[in-house]
């Protein structure tokens, strides 16, 4: 089966993010760029399905700039078969990115799109659900277990108050949660092979989808920093100050 996996380039989660003084964005010097962690989980799940079935194709897709090739190559080194870079040099909102991916998905006709639940930079948690609606497909968000049987897919989802199980026919969109799997690292032979795997570029404007942003970021501000308080010497003192000073117990 063919599985499409969207991939976003984001700052390493360990990076300290600083907002530029003029509010125009974040400072990108000293930022290490990585694959969005939820997308690594998505790639891993796609590879496991392919390995279990003994055949199939895992196709990566990014809507971004030339630099994003780096993350696509890393995904190819993990084991994906080929990659598509939809080149966009102007910022797009989530609707436009979802439209661009939906257009490619309708041409590629995968049985599954496996996608991260959330990009750790914009924290939107939108694109998988948008994609499912645009394609008219079922969606299973926040997946912690995926089971395939014939045309049917059963997914356990991490929801409020427990775990929900839903089922649906493919094609479908699945968004990954943290407990779905533990992504593999790219091996050295994997990295060598990845260099020769196909990475096609398409200009976003050539897709014929509406791109004008409807969500605009006016400014970015640094949040007020919380001041560190003080150390207490003992449990007894701690409980006392919580009672008499903070008055919370």
């Amino acid at each position: 089966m063919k599985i499409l996996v969207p991939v976003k380039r984001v700052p390493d989660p360990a990076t300290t993010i600083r907002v530029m003084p003029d509010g125009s964005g974040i400072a990108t010097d000293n930022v290490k760029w990585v694959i969005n962690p939820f997308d690594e989980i998505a790639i891993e799940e796609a590879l496991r399905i392919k390995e279990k079935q003994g055949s199939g194709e895992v196709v990566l897709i990014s809507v971004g700039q030339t630099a994003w090739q780096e993350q696509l190559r890393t995904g190819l080194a993990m084991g994906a078969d080929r990659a598509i870079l939809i080149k966009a040099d102007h910022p797009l909102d989530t609707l436009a990115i979802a439209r661009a991916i939906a257009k490619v998905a309708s041409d590629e006709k995968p049985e599954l799109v496996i996608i991260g639940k959330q990009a750790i930079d914009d924290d939107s948690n939108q694109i998988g659900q948008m994609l499912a609606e645009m394609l008219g497909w079922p969606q299973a968000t926040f997946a912690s277990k995926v089971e395939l049987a014939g045309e049917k897919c059963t997914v356990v989802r991490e929801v409020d108050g427990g775990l929900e199980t839903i089922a649906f026919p493919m094609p479908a969109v699945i968004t990954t949660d943290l407990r779905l799997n533990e992504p593999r690292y790219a091996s050295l032979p994997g990295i060598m092979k990845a260099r020769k795997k196909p990475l096609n570029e398409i200009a976003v404007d050539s897709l014929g989808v509406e791109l004008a942003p409807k969500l605009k970021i006016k400014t970015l501000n640094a949040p007020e920093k919380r001041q560190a308080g003080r150390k207490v010497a003992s449990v007894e003192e701690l409980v006392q100050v919580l009672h008499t000073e903070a008055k919370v117990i």
Partner: protein
Amino acid sequence: MGDVLVFAEHRGGHFPKTTLIAVNAGLEMARKRGGHCIAVLSGEGAPAAAAEIAKYGPSKVIVLDHPKLAHYLADAAAQALADLVKKTGAETVLATATAVGKDLMPRLAARLGAPMASEIIAINDDGTMVRPMYAGNALATIELDGPVRVVTVRGTAFDAAKPADSAAPVETVAPELDAAALKMEFVGFNEIKSDRPQLTEARIVVSGGRGLKSGDNFKTVLEPLVDEMGAAMGASRAAVDAGFVPNDLQVGQTGKVVAPELYVAVGISGAIQHLAGMKDSKTIVAINKDEEAPIFGVADYGLVADLFKAVPEMVEEVKKLKH
């Protein structure tokens, strides 16, 4: 007119505090956009929940009635809400960013071709909104263009709606659904039952991290403190990943966001992703044996100690306070 549809989530007729938060945010949005706030419910038990929610200030309550809506599923719910947006001409559709809100609202936005803002924390008078990005390290002021827009609100940023003087009228609407396009099926819900307060509703939250070392220690060491304080229990991702506690307890950027009056972090280092979910708590306490742990950077009161000694002591001290 800037009418606001609030998706009022409930389970079998009972609604969590997050639903009252959505109603209150909807009332604020409607006031600032010169429109009315309309609460919308669907699913089993909706009429009972509708009668209740009607007492919290909306101008009207609508029950969406269709056999395909008996149990919440994103595809049917998105169709039904989109149909209602067309029928009412509403400008904004709003929900709290719960698991259901996060699942449904982007799908609805795509169906409407509308932009969506996730987890807003403020509604400005000029129509812009504020939302955190980068695990809360940046606050973006954003604008949504077009005749319709979709919004989820962060539960910690808005108060719950209060009972009003009179109850709003309740109306039942049968949405038009394209049933052939609905392919999702509910199989089951494995509920994690607990007698403790809800994590997102509790006045006090006591969270444990990898420092607890095992699920057994959560039970024997942390739970007595949680219960003595009448608190909800939370956890770091590391504790959830290790299987010490259920996923539902994860606090952080990619788990639940909480802001109780008192947050006690036990054996948690204070990674940026964890801080994103608790740093707006009123008072923060950290118990950690490493005095360099970043959690102390946000704690009002820090105790450098071995948790296996400090936590049982704390249970005793809190007990003493009660006598």
